[in-house]
């Protein structure tokens, strides 16, 4: 029974890794840019969800609260948060990444800029909102189902389903739609794409919208599952999701989802079998081993160099 409980736990936490890893991989797949601010965009998403929710609920002493029911609040919060979070992502791209790209800077300078942008989001939040943590209101009546010693909450099920649905949606967009084709095209040749009459910047902005709104969605689900918000909440999970995306084969949507779940299973598996103090040591050694055996990740294709 303990085994099934662990599997469920791994599925749930893996879903978060996967959702965030999807954002990394989308942007990477198009721009070859590691958007290190992504973990913090996720954090901003959670905070936006918080403010939207308490505004609508009228909780926590917000006088202007609309006093809506929790269910209705949730229904409105999800799309609003996704839109607002994608705005944050697009702002970063417009104000910081695009000018650098235009100047032809080395790709790693854009990566470092992303890292700095993440720090600004974290510490700006700390400076503006203070060090107090925020408690996310309960928008969904929690139901715990127990089957012979295995406990599942309705939220866990929603999170896992959401990860799978988002994966399916993104896979559809990228492989079956015109805009997805353009996205894949950019990753092959950034210079040829504008010549084909495809608006490069529009596609890039679309990618950021897609990636950041997924971070926003992950932010809401995370805030509902772990209802304590703090400015640094996105840092660690962001790094780990990045690792998951790379282990899966960065740039490939299947890789992100598999990498995310894999990391969830490894981490929880190590805790389940070994003393939990060894978790990081073992989990990262396993990942190192995987990359040793498959140097371009699980789904990554080795770039063939023509001489």
């Amino acid at each position, binding site marked *: *029974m*303990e085994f099934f*409980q*662990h599997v469920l*736990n*791994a599925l*749930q*936490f893996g879903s978060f890794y996967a959702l965030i890893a999807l954002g990394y991989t989308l942007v990477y797949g198009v721009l070859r840019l590691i958007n290190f601010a992504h973990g913090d965009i996720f954090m901003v998403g959670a905070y936006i969800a918080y403010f939207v929710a308490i505004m609508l609920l009228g909780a926590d002493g917000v006088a202007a609260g609309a006093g809506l029911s929790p269910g209705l609040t949730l229904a409105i919060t999800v799309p609003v948060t996704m839109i607002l979070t994608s705005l944050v992502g697009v702002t970063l791209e417009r104000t910081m990444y695009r000018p650098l790209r235009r100047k032809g800077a080395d790709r790693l300078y854009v990566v470092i800029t992303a890292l700095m942008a993440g720090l600004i989001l974290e*510490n700006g939040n*700390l400076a503006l909102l*203070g*060090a*107090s*943590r925020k*408690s996310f209101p309960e928008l969904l009546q*929690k139901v*715990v189902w*127990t089957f012979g*010693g295995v*406990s599942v*909450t309705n939220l866990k099920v929603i999170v896992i389903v959401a990860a799978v649905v988002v994966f399916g949606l993104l896979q559809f967009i990228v492989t079956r739609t015109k805009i997805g084709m353009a996205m894949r095209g950019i990753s092959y040749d950034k210079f040829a794409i504008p010549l084909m009459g495809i608006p490069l910047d529009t596609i890039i902005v679309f990618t950021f919208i897609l990636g950041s709104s997924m971070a926003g969605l992950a932010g809401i689900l*995370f805030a509902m599952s*772990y*209802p*304590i918000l*703090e*400015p*640094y*909440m996105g*840092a*660690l*999970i962001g790094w780990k999701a990045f690792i998951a995306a790379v282990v899966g084969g960065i740039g490939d949507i299947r890789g992100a989802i598999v990498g995310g779940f894999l990391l969830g299973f490894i*981490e*929880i598996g190590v*805790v*389940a079998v070994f*003393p*939990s*103090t060894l*978790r*990081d040591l073992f989990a990262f050694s396993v990942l190192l081993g995987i990359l040793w055996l498959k140097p371009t990740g699980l789904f990554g294709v080795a770039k063939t160099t023509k001489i």
Partner: protein
Amino acid sequence: MKNMTVKVLLAVLALALGAFALTGCGKDGDVIKIGFNLELTGDIPKVGEASKFAAEMLKEDINAKGGLEVGGKKYKLEFVYQDNEAKAESAVNAALKLITQDNVVAIIGPNSSKQAIPAGGACNDNQTPMVSPWSTNPDTTKDRPWVFRAAFLDPFQGPVAANFAAKQFGAKTSAVLFDIANDYSKGLAEIFKTEWEKKSGAGTVVAFESHGTKDQDFSAQLTKIVAAKPDFIFVPDNYNQVALIIKQARDLGYKGPFMGSDAWGSAELMTLCGKECIGQFFSTHYAAAGAQGATKEFIDRYNEKYKYVPDDVAALTWDATRLVLQAIQEAGKVEKDIKTERKIVRDALANIKEFAGITGTMKFHGTGDPDKCAVVVQISPEGKFEFKESVCP
């Protein structure tokens, strides 16, 4: 053109360096300067913020009365805050800056042992008294005559929790969940384990699990703990993690009680944890609910000013700062020379045998570590921390 930019940059850099070398030559009037070496950013900003708030309140109090009276003369207080970013090297730099640039008489902080141990070394080497409000690691004050602290040590708190839980829950077995990357949490967890196994026999700590500092998911550890069926779970963790741990344990079907440590003692615990925490016990420095006298006054005023009930860090900072101020007063005079002043303040600090703080009475025995009583509180249905038992060494 491009070279021009570099040259301008280099010039700016040179200027910045020059300006930097010239900073920090202040003048001293009839003021007493005390430095604060706090974790305002980094991993635990809330701790630094609470310390700063408490200190500000104390300063306003005393300055409103015209200042601190030493040897018949009133001196205004000036508190200098330095952020140590919750980093060891930054804490040393902050301490050295306070000592050599800001010319403070004494330093309060850092709070966390990771910063307090190296900063304590710097203060001791430079003969400046330092009081850490919150550090519980024995190394902070060990062999350092200039370093003091206001908190009790882990080896005292561990047994308090073990004894209380055995009695209250009638427990035979226990489980522990702690933060591997936090020396406070790990130290307390280990002392608790030794103490419990001494009492109830080997193997009665049925699960001993850890997590990382910024983790938010504890389901794997809790699944193992729940499967081991302990009579209660000891969680020597920070309050923000406690809130998540208790919620997740309940989701996994655990119905038993929890026992906590002083790091639970924050007003935020209840806003974050809500009804799930009601009825749980933890050992701490003081009980906010039902507090009397100076303690109550402090809590009420802090609550009014900053809109939340103060954490133990705030209360301990208050005590630590008052301890230093008392030493300054007992020294009887304020020396012009900062080095002599620090010396007499340290000697006065070392001479304090008993100090009535708002976190209880502290007795010093020349080691810089206080003996003080711990209290065990229970979280009431209104979310107040109600006094349950007091344990004195």
